[in-house]
């Protein structure tokens, strides 16, 4: 158990180092850091002095070590475009993205499980066929089109919900939340649904497949023979056993949700990390891009690690076989 966790940790550190290398190469070699800091009138000699003072003339390996040292402390330099520390920028926009990601993950989980159970139990009914067909179309629709369609229906035509922004926000320490005001809650509905649809179809298909599988097993037949009610069988026995993979997938998908938020945030002008990233790609604001890359990689690695450990804790079979099955 401990050996597995240590091995996983080592792997995660390796991945992070790899990503850090990419971020460092971007940071150092895309554009000239000095040229982006000084004006046209700075003399070349002065530029050289700056270069020296910032350590840009040191061996590349030393620079990489310093980059990692700074990154560990959460320092990614200053944004070329906004002239603010990158870490501050990201932290100030992180709450918006996290709230959006969690809202959509909740919708995806509840909606996906409900629809999955429904389509598994009502096999062959018209509603099931319709839902399955809709999910197929939903998967091939680009996210931004879904967002635009929702805006058109609910904001332009019906005028029920706001089409952009976060609404009114409340400061809770450094965390700026939109979940405590009415306008904030109304604002999050459309982007959260947009972001959730892809995961929702995924979870739905997974739950459906797992349910169909479980429903064929002996213990379900035995439960039926014991005369248990349908409700107890479907939810107490069948659904319960499908939930482990569902939770794994949802956890693993949380990272993609944060990354996919780039598109959703742009469509809804949601002031999160994703829209910050897009604007920095447009104007080649390298420090922000590098920091975002590190941030996303960190989120992915941590989530993967947690899921791995959870898996180990949940599934006793992995513990018996030890390292072999745990890989």
């Amino acid at each position, binding site marked *: 158990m401990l050996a597995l966790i240590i091995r996983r940790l080592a792997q995660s550190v390796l*991945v992070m180092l*790899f*990503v850090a290398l990419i971020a460092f190469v*971007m940071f150092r070699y*895309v*554009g000239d850091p000095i040229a982006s800091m000084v004006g046209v009138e700075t003399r070349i000699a002065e530029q050289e002095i700056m270069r020296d003072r910032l350590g840009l003339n040191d061996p590349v390996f030393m620079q990489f070590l310093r980059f990692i040292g700074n990154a560990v402390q959460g320092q990614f330099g200053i944004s070329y475009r906004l002239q603010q520390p990158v870490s501050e920028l990201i932290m100030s926009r992180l709450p918006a993205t996290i709230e959006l990601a969690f809202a959509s993950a909740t919708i995806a989980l509840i909606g996906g499980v409900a629809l999955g159970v429904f389509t598994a139990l009502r096999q062959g009914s018209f509603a099931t066929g319709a839902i399955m067909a809709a999910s197929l*179309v939903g998967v*091939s*629709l*680009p*996210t*931004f*089109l879904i967002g*635009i369609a929702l*805006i*058109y229906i609910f904001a*332009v035509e019906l005028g029920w919900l706001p*089409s952009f922004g976060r609404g009114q926000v409340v400061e809770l320490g450094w965390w700026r939340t939109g979940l405590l005001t009415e306008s904030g809650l109304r604002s999050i509905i459309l982007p959260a649904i947009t972001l959730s649809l892809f995961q929702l179809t995924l979870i739905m298909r997974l739950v459906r497949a797992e349910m169909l599988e479980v429903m064929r097993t002996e213990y379900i037949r035995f439960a039926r023979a014991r005369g248990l009610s349908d409700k107890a069988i479907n939810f107490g026995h069948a659904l319960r056993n499908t939930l482990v993979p569902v939770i794994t997938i949802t956890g693993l998908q949380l*990272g*993609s949700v944060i*990354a*996919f938020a*780039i*598109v959703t945030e*742009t469509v809804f002008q949601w002031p999160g990390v994703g829209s910050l*990233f*897009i604007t*920095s*790609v*447009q104007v*080649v604001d*390298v420090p922000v*891009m590098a920091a975002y*890359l590190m941030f*996303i*990689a960190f989120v*992915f690695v941590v989530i*993967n690690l947690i899921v791995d450990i959870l898996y180990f804790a949940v599934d006793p079979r992995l513990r018996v076989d030890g390292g072999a099955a745990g890989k």
Partner: protein
Amino acid sequence: MTNDPMTTRQIEPVIPPRPPGLLRQALDSDMFYSWRNSPVTIVATFTAAALILVALLAPWIAPYNPFNPATLNLMDGFTPPMSEGAFSDNWFLMGADHQGRDVFSTIMYGSRVSLFVGAMATLFAMTLGVGLGLASGYNGGTIDAVIMRIADIQLSFPAILIALLIFGVARGLIPPSQQESMAIWVLIFAIGLSNWAQFARTVRGATMVERQKDYVAAARIMGVHPALILLRHILPNVLGPVLVIGTIGLALAIIEEATLSFLGVGVPPTQPSLGTLIRIGQQYLFSGEWWILFFPAVTLVLLALSVNLLGDWLRDALNPKLR
């Protein structure tokens, strides 16, 4: 002389039945049978074929050239669908956009750009992925471990994020004067590079299976160069799944391109793709000019969906286990 059949019977030469023509063979094949029996696939094939044909022939069949300022009339801007421009004789099937461009024609030219980028990016991803997959599966060992670890890391991130990063980096490296003309190639490079891992993984798996077979051993004993074994003997045998991933990858690449262009980091506005058109149309959604957005969006969905369905069918048809 009597014509006694017993004595004068000619010995007829046994003529082997003429091998059926290529068309006949194609029509009798399992593939065609499964195609014919799937109405959805037939519809998808014709939809995709029609869209691709229209895109290819755009310069010759589009009613207007939307990028020729001489034929544009700004006063025609926002003409609704199926009506004539207020200040010219131009008739607009799908309306006109803010610059008085015929939406129908811009879609034709736009799907050309979308398809070109999608196809080139998929081709690039396929070449890179198949090459690395073959090398990885055939050699094993360190090469295999390194390539597959990189593929693993890349696959755990969404393709769109990787494409965005590559695009941003390329943008920083290319001098501003060439950015406009290079943009489309940068885009192809970014999308292609974000999708190679799928191919590499599949080909690696298939190669590892093929490598064990006798025909490869025979070729090796005969002293055939490993590169030739890979290209001439193994490659043809692993192409089936590549074709499937390629088709589905094309749909994904088209959507990826549209998303990037929609985010404003794709093709330059002088060569709008479907994504760019949707980006433009979105600005006029609130004022009720829905057609500028609606028609490009429908085209994009039809294109992606039909290619996707074709890929699904191909996967089922090429997999004998499912039959």
